[in-house]
């Protein structure tokens, strides 16, 4: 490694770990909500470096993992229609549906395209008027403005052949669902920095008040994560329950007001099913009535067969932080990233995939020793 940036500075990492060791007096359960943070914690070996009293529980924060099976089946059904080009972020392709994944459907001849941005799908719709372009609009709040803009652009361009299959999920209701679950005893949360870049801090004050838990908005680089954990443990050890912002270099109190305005122009809040968890009230976005003609769910008569989950997969318990991936009997055996049984093994931000890819990393290889 030629150059270590400040966020990966082994010296800073060591200092944070030392301070954590000094202040921690008892067992704490902390959940990181964002899958990107899970990925970074595991791949940088931070989990093994931290004091054993601090247990990191990996939350439901991967939109790929929580997209309901029924919606994946719908996307596959649409992709298989002759006049449709189904566009999606790359992560969704390998997620197993009831019978197959989008990737298998593509191999069988369905037209599936991986795009980097929903705006590319709008461009494709403009250039391909003879086809229906459907974008599989998955994501948390971070991605919502992009998906909203795609519909707003399509509308401004007067396109009739563009629509989105919406699978949007929201972070604060997921935190509520975790807090209300009797089996998960989370004592503090790291909130997702990029979600708050859009939404700001406002939605998190009521959660801190209602559940008397500390929340720290945190970035995703190793030093960010350790600093966020340290801020949280300091609160826990002194009995404070506050909302703090570790990621203040990016996250503003009010987020990005223009982005929020754009989301609300196209979307309204709705109840949403989370794969492995069930329906969480007011936890997702759906297109507003005036954009109904861009809603693939309403535009197409989607025929759906029986929806069936793998019987072995314990993704629900993984996503709620009740079990760790290695507690799954299929982990690394029947279920691998090449042959995933459940979504957390597919997405690079899924907890099972993170553990699978980086389980070889031991503390001796982790960044503090470099």
């Amino acid at each position, binding site marked *: *490694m030629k*150059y*270590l*940036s*400040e*966020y*990966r500075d082994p010296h800073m990492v060591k200092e944070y770990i030392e301070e954590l060791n000094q202040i921690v007096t008892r067992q704490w359960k902390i959940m990181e909500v*964002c*899958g*990107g943070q899970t990925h*970074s914690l595991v*791949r940088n070996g931070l989990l093994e470096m931290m004091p054993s009293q601090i247990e990191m529980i990996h939350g439901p*924060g*991967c*939109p*790929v993992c929580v997209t309901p099976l029924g919606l994946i089946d719908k996307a596959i059904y649409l992709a298989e229609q002759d006049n449709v080009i189904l566009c999606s*972020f*790359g*992560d969704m392709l390998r997620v197993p549906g009831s019978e197959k994944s989008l990737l298998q459907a593509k191999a069988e001849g369905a037209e599936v395209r*991986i795009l*980097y*941005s*929903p*705006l*590319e799908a*709008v*461009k494709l719709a*403009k250039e391909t008027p003879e086809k229906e372009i459907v974008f599989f609009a*998955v*994501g*948390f709040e*971070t*991605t919502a*403005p*992009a998906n909203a*803009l795609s519909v707003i*652009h399509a509308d*401004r*361009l007067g396109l009739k052949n563009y629509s989105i299959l919406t699978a949007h999920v929201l972070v604060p209701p997921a935190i509520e669902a975790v807090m209300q679950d009797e089996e998960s005893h989370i004592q503090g949360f790291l909130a*997702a920095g*990029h979600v708050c*870049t*859009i939404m700001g801090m406002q939605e998190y004050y009521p959660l801190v008040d209602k559940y008397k838990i500390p929340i720290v908005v945190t970035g*995703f*680089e190793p030093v960010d994560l350790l600093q966020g954990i340290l801020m949280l443990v300091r609160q826990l050890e002194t009995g404070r329950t506050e909302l703090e912002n570790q990621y203040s*270099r*990016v996250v*503003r109190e009010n987020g*990005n007001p*223009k*982005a929020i305005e*754009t989301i609300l122009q196209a979307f309204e809040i709705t109840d949403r099913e989370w794969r492995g968890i069930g329906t969480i009230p007011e936890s997702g976005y759906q297109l507003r009535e005036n954009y109904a003609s861009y809603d693939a769910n309403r535009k197409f008569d989607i025929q759906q067969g029986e929806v069936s989950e793998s019987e072995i997969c314990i993704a629900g318990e993984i996503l709620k932080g009740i079990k760790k991936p290695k507690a799954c009997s299929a982990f690394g055996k029947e279920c691998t990233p090449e042959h995933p049984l459940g979504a957390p093994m597919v*997405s690079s*931000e899924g907890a099972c995939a993170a553990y699978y890819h980086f389980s070889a990393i031991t503390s001796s290889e982790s960044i503090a020793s470099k």
Partner: protein
Amino acid sequence: MCLAIPGQIKSIESPIGDVSRMAKVSFDGILKEASLELVPEAKEGDFVLVHVGIAISVVDKDEAQKTFDYLKQIGELDDLQH
């Protein structure tokens, strides 16, 4: 897919039928298009945090450089190459 990456605005234009303010953004040398609609204050030379083709905030230049270094180490910038 949830990652947001900082890039520098090289030029500003409006290609898709004039519906949006678009820019060519350099991600440590890799050029991509991004919409600037959500960051009306952004101008040429600024660094913006880009997520799925949309700039979501303006960031400090030094912060952006540190993030590049980190992303390069973990190989995430490769995702942009396809």
